[in-house]
């Protein structure tokens, strides 16, 4: 819904946003008693603190060796015995860099494939006219309704049949096409003016050329948000990697975290050190790309 609104006038979004910001400022000023900024920011910061504190506590606890056998009764944000021991334990038992490599390969290839398939079908459903179009579109949409758990065992059997277990194939192939991406791209491409495509057709361009040269470049914002969503989905997926990869060298980061986090559950410090190792790089990427990520989420109205 939000997508549609933004896309109707893509060229004027920035201008409108600026206008709006000005307007909201004006309206607060014109109101009888505008809420003072300091109270607003203060209240919101208290909430923000609640968001951040568990993470801070995770990091500080992970720096205490004592927390493996005896957690302090009163939570502390400064470990009494600051050391990297828990990280030594965590990294000695897990090839965490290998997990990262696997996650990057799997998430990267899945995302590229997923974007391509989604844009291709999205274009067909938005601008194409062919018999059975609604059937195919409904078919794509209905797959949104089929929860992963429902098909897990038959799908695992299929992977074994194809001999894909413990390969990247099993982690990538089932996730290349999906109803959600198709739907999102269709919504976006529908918003593109028909005149552009029409003009290209008159000039004799084939549909695939139009797709590559005209549609794809205009889809950048939608593709970016779809990419973000897909990256979050795939990065956090756990169930499937655990089923199809039995070899440690094929584990993803999330899988590695789950594996060690639970097995070292009684050792709070090590468990939280492992969690930190799995979360921290993602957080750094998030902080670097925060603007794009947040815009992407707000645009598509979808989270991971």
């Amino acid at each position: 819904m939000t997508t549609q609104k933004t896309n109707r006038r893509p060229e004027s979004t920035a201008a409108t946003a600026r206008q709006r910001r000005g307007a909201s400022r004006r309206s607060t000023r014109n109101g009888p008693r505008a809420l003072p900024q300091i109270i607003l920011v203060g209240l919101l910061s208290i909430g923000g603190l609640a968001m951040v504190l568990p993470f801070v506590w995770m990091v500080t606890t992970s720096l205490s060796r004592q927390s493996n056998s005896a957690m302090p009764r009163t939570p502390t944000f400064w470990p009494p015995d600051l050391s990297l021991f828990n990280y030594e334990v965590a990294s000695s038992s897990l090839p965490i860099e290998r997990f990262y490599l696997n996650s990057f390969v799997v998430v990267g290839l899945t995302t590229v494939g997923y974007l391509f398939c989604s844009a291709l079908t999205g274009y067909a459903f938005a601008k194409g006219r062919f018999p059975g179009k609604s059937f195919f579109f409904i078919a794509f949409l209905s797959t949104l309704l089929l929860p992963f758990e429902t098909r897990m065992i038959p799908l695992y059997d299929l992977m074994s049949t194809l001999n894909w277990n413990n390969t990247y194939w099993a982690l990538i192939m089932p996730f290349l096409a999906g109803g959600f991406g198709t739907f999102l791209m269709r919504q976006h491409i529908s918003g593109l003016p028909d005149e552009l495509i029409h003009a290209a057709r008159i000039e004799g361009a084939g549909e695939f050329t139009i797709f590559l040269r005209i549609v794809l470049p205009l889809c950048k914002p939608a593709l970016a948000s779809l990419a973000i969503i897909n990256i979050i989905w795939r990065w956090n997926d756990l169930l499937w990697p655990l089923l199809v990869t039995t070899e440690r060298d094929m584990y993803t980061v999330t899988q590695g975290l789950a594996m060690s986090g639970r097995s070292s559950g009684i050792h709070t410090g090590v468990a939280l050190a492992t969690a930190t190792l799995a979360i921290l790089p993602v957080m750094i990427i998030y902080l670097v790309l925060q603007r794009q990520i947040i815009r992407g989420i707000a645009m598509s109205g979808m989270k991971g």
Partner: protein
Amino acid sequence: MHSSLLRTLVTSTLMVGLAACGGADTGSGGSGADRDSAPPVKVLMIGYPDEDGIDAVTGAKTPGIQQLQAAFDKANPDITMEIISIPWGEGATGYAPKTEAMIKANEACLYEMPAAPAYGKRGLLVNLDTMIAKDPAFTNVWGEQALDAARSWGPDNAKSLFYLPNNTGIRVINWDAKLFKDWGVEPLSAKPTLQEIESKAARMTGKNPVTGEQNYGYWYQGKYAVWQFMAIAHAMGADWGSIKADGKLEINWNTPGYLQAMEWFVRMSTYAPKGALATEGMPQGFVTDKNTVAIIPEGEQSYFLPQLIAQPDLRERFRTSYNLKGPDGRGGLNSASPLAMAASCPNKDQAWTVLKWLAGSPEAQAYYFDSIGRLPVVEGSEKIVTPVAGLPDGAIVLDQARTADATYPWAAEQPRFALQAQLEAAIAGKVTPSQALEQAQKETDEWLARQ
């Protein structure tokens, strides 16, 4: 335009064709090809460290699973074994879905399999008695009693041996001698009765007369409380039921014996920290000088062995008694880890050699202890794990493995979860013990009816 159309068509046809061919493949000639080329014997093992690591408390080195592989290769140069190592995990991360999926896909030959009796019942495992019968070189290092305890109902034989015990966790009663001394309470006896535990736990709950800290007389592992409950009930002489001749289970929770046991448990839970219900392990600070819990029935000794071995000064403080024993002299969860062979295994003879080595050889037994503190189930184990034998209560620890309760065939099934859920509700005071047992029985009956 045309070429890309063609390419896409070809690709998609290939995709579908590939799947269809793959499907036909395993249907017909899969096993025939396997026999010719003698594939590696694949073994699913659960919960061993993947790499050499460091113990999180003591800092001691722990050997990774590849050391077990290396030891095997050295002892059996003619056989290729391949270990698939997965963590216990839980739920999505758990071994159970993995095992189910793997056995359906004929992924491995040997399985470390907590639910072996259930898989055996479904006809998916080899009755190892048939392997023993064919094997003149077989020596029973586990003891006839242990193998007999392992036998369960199978479609071909009502007393089938579906696994060999691989290694075992030890469920004992852990207690803190210092707290006993602070409170002026007589130390716990080696084979304590329920009455002794109740009166001593009650006396040690409150402000410690020496340190002034809040002490708790009792502890239970919230999410695994069902095992402590079973130990208590067994000690009271209660009996869960039996396997009938046709392999069907008969389970009775709703009996006076279990009611008495649950009432006792609920009473004792008031001497434990309130948060115990949410925990899945031992109390924070046990085997450190910050401990505040006096008695842990059904305690998991494996957690503490590395610390007790590494820190001799703690050995006199943190002591071990036998788990609760019933009239038959047995008691405490049998946490032997079953190693089973899939009926679909193409090279059973080689797999049998691997199975015997993993479950019975001193090298393998030593590895299990060094890596995760699990103990041998073979006779003469004190010679394999000498550091344990050297502890003040080492003899009790090793002997507990041989006197645990018989395994529960429903241990990984609905009856356990029904009972656990109701036990939690009873401890939390949401239902009375009799309501809890009634409901657990109802859910168990529903499950039994589906068998």
